[in-house]
């Protein structure tokens, strides 16, 4: 096999051997790694494609039976798939996606359990009411820690512990996002950037999305309701969670999300292709978003 040399039709190559001058030379080994490397050099044109027949591999002297052909081919394909999966898993953004999913799940679990524990507490002490208390997160847990029931206290302690893990995880997400998707993070912060990444399914996928899609990522229900029945289209999806969008004047949020989405699309491409933070780009992008939020034409 000469690398770089184009193969003519007279010299077809198969994964199991090469045909030269009407004679087939079998591949040197049935080792999956060897065969996989061999395969890299084989290009197939679908227009003139004719599937390889196992009989050709037998006549070539590569295998003795159909059973052996399938066994070697299967080992090769499993090897290739496992290798490719390993490559995918090694992408740092895959872990970031898992981290942000875990953080959302922790929120849900903490809220559910805390809510149920408050109900339990209320059943034991009738004078307790959730009304007139700003019973959010930590404060609720503190009240539960002072209750008489050791079981409820135990649960509250557990939730306190989970809350600490969540806080640590949040810091870790911010940090990892700053390394993996520095420009997206610079625009909307690590958590929102990581959520966008998770919704797109990966950095490459996010980098290839048009701004219009990024704008409504996470607003699937509203988007399909719009397409189906013509209700008004969603102005924002995940990016609504960014302070600059939900904090903007109501009448301007659409314009802000549009501008922001366009800038995130650019940021994702810089992150994917260059991978470095670009301060010049970030300054310009932030200025554009601010103009959209309060610029001329109000």
């Amino acid at each position, binding site marked *: 096999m000469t690398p770089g040399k184009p193969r003519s039709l007279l010299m077809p190559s*198969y*994964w199991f051997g090469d045909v030269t001058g009407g004679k087939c030379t079998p591949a040197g080994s049935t080792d999956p790694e060897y065969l996989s490397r061999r*395969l890299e050099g*084989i*290009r*197939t*044109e*679908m227009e003139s*494609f*004719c*599937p*390889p*027949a*196992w009989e050709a591999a037998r006549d070539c002297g590569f295998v003795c039976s159909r059973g052996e052909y*399938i*066994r070697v*081919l*299967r080992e*090769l*394909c*499993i090897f*290739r*798939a*496992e290798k*490719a*999966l390993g490559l*995918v*898993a090694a992408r740092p953004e*895959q872990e970031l996606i898992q981290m942000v999913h875990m953080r959302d799940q922790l929120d849900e679990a903490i809220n559910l359990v805390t809510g149920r524990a408050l109900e339990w507490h209320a059943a034991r002490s009738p004078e307790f009411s959730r009304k007139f208390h700003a019973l959010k997160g930590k404060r609720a847990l503190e009240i539960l820690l002072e209750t008489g029931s050791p079981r409820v206290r135990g649960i509250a302690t557990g939730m306190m512990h989970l809350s600490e893990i969540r806080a640590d995880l949040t810091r870790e997400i911010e940090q990892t996002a700053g390394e993996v998707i520095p420009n997206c993070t610079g625009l909307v912060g690590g958590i929102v950037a990581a959520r966008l990444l998770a919704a797109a399914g990966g950095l490459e996928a996010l980098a290839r999305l048009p701004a219009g899609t990024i704008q409504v990522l996470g607003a699937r229900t509203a988007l*399909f309701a719009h*397409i*189906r029945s013509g209700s008004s289209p969603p102005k924002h999806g995940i990016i609504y969670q960014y302070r600059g969008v939900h904090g903007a004047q109501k009448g301007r949020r659409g314009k802000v999300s549009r501008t922001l989405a366009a800038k995130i699309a650019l940021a994702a491409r810089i992150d994917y292709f260059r991978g470095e933070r670009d301060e010049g780009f970030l300054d310009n992008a932030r200025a554009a978003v601010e103009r959209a939020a309060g610029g001329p034409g109000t």
Partner: protein
Amino acid sequence: MIWIDGVLVSRGEGGVYGERMIRGHRVWDPCRSKLAAYYYLGGEVSLEPWMRVLYLGAAHGTTVSHVSDSAEVVYAVENAYAPMRDLLAVASRRKNIIPLFADAAHPSSYAPLVEEVDLLFQDVAHPDQAGIALMNLPFLRRGGTALIVVKARSIDVTQKPADVVHEVSQKLAESGLISRRVIWLEPYHRDHAILECPKD
């Protein structure tokens, strides 16, 4: 196909995905598998022990495991990360599944590895399902059949499912692949149909 008291089953090692067993056979649930639904609704293109199958959109390997029970060899193409992991786990215990981590819309990436098959089964969520079927047609032998699941909702949510299916079968017909029969998978799967297309 093996039926026990009106229940579709296949013969193989159980416990792949928590499927029920009847008298040592694996129950093949039509609500979980579109191919099983096709057989429940009178689909006649059955799997035979000598058959070579190319399966596009193998997903987690649930249906693939039943096809593997019933056919000689299955070439299973899947291009998403998480399902592929499950598919590999299924393939590790079944000697006749050949897993291909590739995109069915780019058949040249797996073409050198796939031989001529007797049955092409396609279950992919892609806007151009007809195009993918046509691209993969070179793998199907003459006289073989393509079973194409049309997921109407993956092609165009704004159109009526029946119109989408009509469009797909027309696009296939333009390239010479005539759908002999359309089987809607109601009540097992909503807005899904299987086109039965013999290749001549």
